[in-house]
């Protein structure tokens, strides 16, 4: 039986998220390798630029529309997605591994009695089967898995797959109104952290560790982060000490991140921290201990006092930016 790929596009405030474009491009690559069709589904109300999905390789988008669906509702979204997958005979479902995707994918797997591989960092075809690679033990080990179910679900770690344009074409959008969505579990309010980028989504992260010596000194981390358009992160030690909120924690009991640039300030590099950030493309470490484990994975390091080095970095970056 032929395959059919379905990609979930995630929208927040009517904007299609970048992780969805990565999923679309990945589906496009898979569909050419497996010679099969692919299409996308999006759930929400007013959504901008759905046609632009065509540029990334999917020509058909089904839009399920209802004013109560602009925010996430686990119950409604999972029903709509599972029913759509059944109706269209989707055999491969691709979902971004975002907070929404992570919540939704297992619900779909249970509803469709399907195999699920979460947080994949590569999808390879071997003997016309998909082999997914996923980090386990927070990235200390990589596990290759194959799914033997009729329907196979994969979630993709953001920032790992590229969202490259494959041409210029507009996707066909088919909008349908949803009658009485199941809102038994629904988001009633979103509390935004004021003007802050999340470490899970940022291209650049500036993280501080115990070497920052106090909560107050994190204004240096924040200043550098702001200058670079980066998110500020933290090690477990400083979160446990109450200097920073848990939402900033990078590592095994925090977030696993893969930014383009990770700047570690005063972080020695405990095994559980390294596990959470080692897949960053470039790592910079500043630490006064030359034997700190962080230097073993850093691309560039300065063995020195962060209280001298970081202000100098801020000045130097200002020069470049001006």
């Amino acid at each position, binding site marked *: 039986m032929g395959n059919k790929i379905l990609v979930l596009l995630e929208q927040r405030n009517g904007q299609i998220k970048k992780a969805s474009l990565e999923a679309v491009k990945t589906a496009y690559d898979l569909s050419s390798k497996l010679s099969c069709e692919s299409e996308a589904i999006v759930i929400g109300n007013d959504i901008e630029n759905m046609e632009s999905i065509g540029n990334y390789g999917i020509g058909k988008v089904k839009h399920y529309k209802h004013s109560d669906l602009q925010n996430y509702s686990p119950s409604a979204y999972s029903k709509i997605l599972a029913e759509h997958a059944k109706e269209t005979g989707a055999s491969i479902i691709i979902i971004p591994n975002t907070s929404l995707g992570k919540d939704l994918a297992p619900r779909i797997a249970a509803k469709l009695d399907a195999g*699920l591989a979460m947080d994949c960092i590569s999808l390879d075809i071997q003997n016309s089967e998909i082999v997914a690679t996923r980090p386990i033990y927070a990235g200390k080990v990589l596990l290759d898995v194959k799914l*033997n179910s009729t329907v196979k679900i994969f979630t993709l770690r953001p920032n790992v797959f590229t969202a490259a344009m494959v041409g210029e074409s507009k996707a066909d959008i088919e909008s349908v109104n949803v009658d009485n969505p199941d809102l038994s*579990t629904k988001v009633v309010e979103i*509390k935004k952290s004021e003007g802050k980028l999340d470490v899970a989504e940022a291209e650049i992260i500036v993280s501080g560790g115990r070497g920052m010596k106090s909560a107050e000194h994190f204004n240096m981390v924040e200043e550098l982060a702001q200058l670079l358009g980066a998110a500020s992160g933290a090690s477990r030690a400083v979160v446990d000490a109450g200097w920073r909120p848990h939402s900033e924690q990078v590592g095994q009991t925090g977030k696993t991140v893969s930014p383009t640039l990770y700047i570690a300030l005063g972080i020695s590099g405990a095994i559980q921290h390294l596990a959470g950030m080692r897949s960053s493309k470039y790592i910079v470490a500043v630490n006064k201990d030359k034997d700190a484990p962080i230097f073993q994975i850093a691309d560039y390091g300065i063995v*020195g006092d962060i209280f001298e080095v970081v202000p100098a970095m801020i000045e130097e970056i200002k020069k470049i930016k001006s």
Partner: protein
Amino acid sequence: MKIAVCVSHVPDTAAKINIAGDGKGIDQTGVTYVVNPYDEFAIEETLKTKEKLGGETVAISLGGEANKETLRKALAMGIDSAVLLKDESYRDSLSVAKALAEEIKTQNAELVFFGKQSVDFDNSVVGQMTAELLGYNCISVVVDFKLEGNKVIAEREIEGGKEVVETLLPAIITAQKGLNEPRYASLKGIMSAKKKVIEEKPAAAATNFVDAVTMKRPAPKQAGKIVGTDATAVPELIRLLHEEAKVI
């Protein structure tokens, strides 16, 4: 009300993980196991909820004999009883969820807490799957939990903020760090946990859809260059980031 908490037994996050010779599992040498860190928040919230509203609490774990250690810890913290669903073999998440759902049905628990993910396979899915299988409502990655009558109001962490989510019992909640401060077991708790009998039963059978093919090490990251030993190295560092790596 019966409140259940599902717990798993995992390698300590400080453990160095080596791959076993067959490439299918990890080398157990020198690896110590602990209560899954997120499950401690789940246990604490179970206890807090019971302290507020009364009821009975049960901890459930699926795995081998060693999981009893984690169940004892839950008992020592104050959980009333414990059930071990015995199965030493590999199971994927959905097959774990199916066995847990059976037991939650047997226990007739209306509210169930999970940790948001086990820090071994890092799937973060079993809570949501179990809820679907039982027809329970579910809120995942919860950092704030309130129960008013049978209405649940919870905050879940998302990128750059929190979602306030409402639903009704019966429900499954998966706990994120920040939900509470897990208590330490008291000496009295530890002593009484030793005397309690952990009920053992075979885990309900289920098919695995996920075949673990092979484990491998991530490509080693080469240590890069030390640009300097004080602030005078900063211009060179920034130049490298700007011109060589092209990341700023």
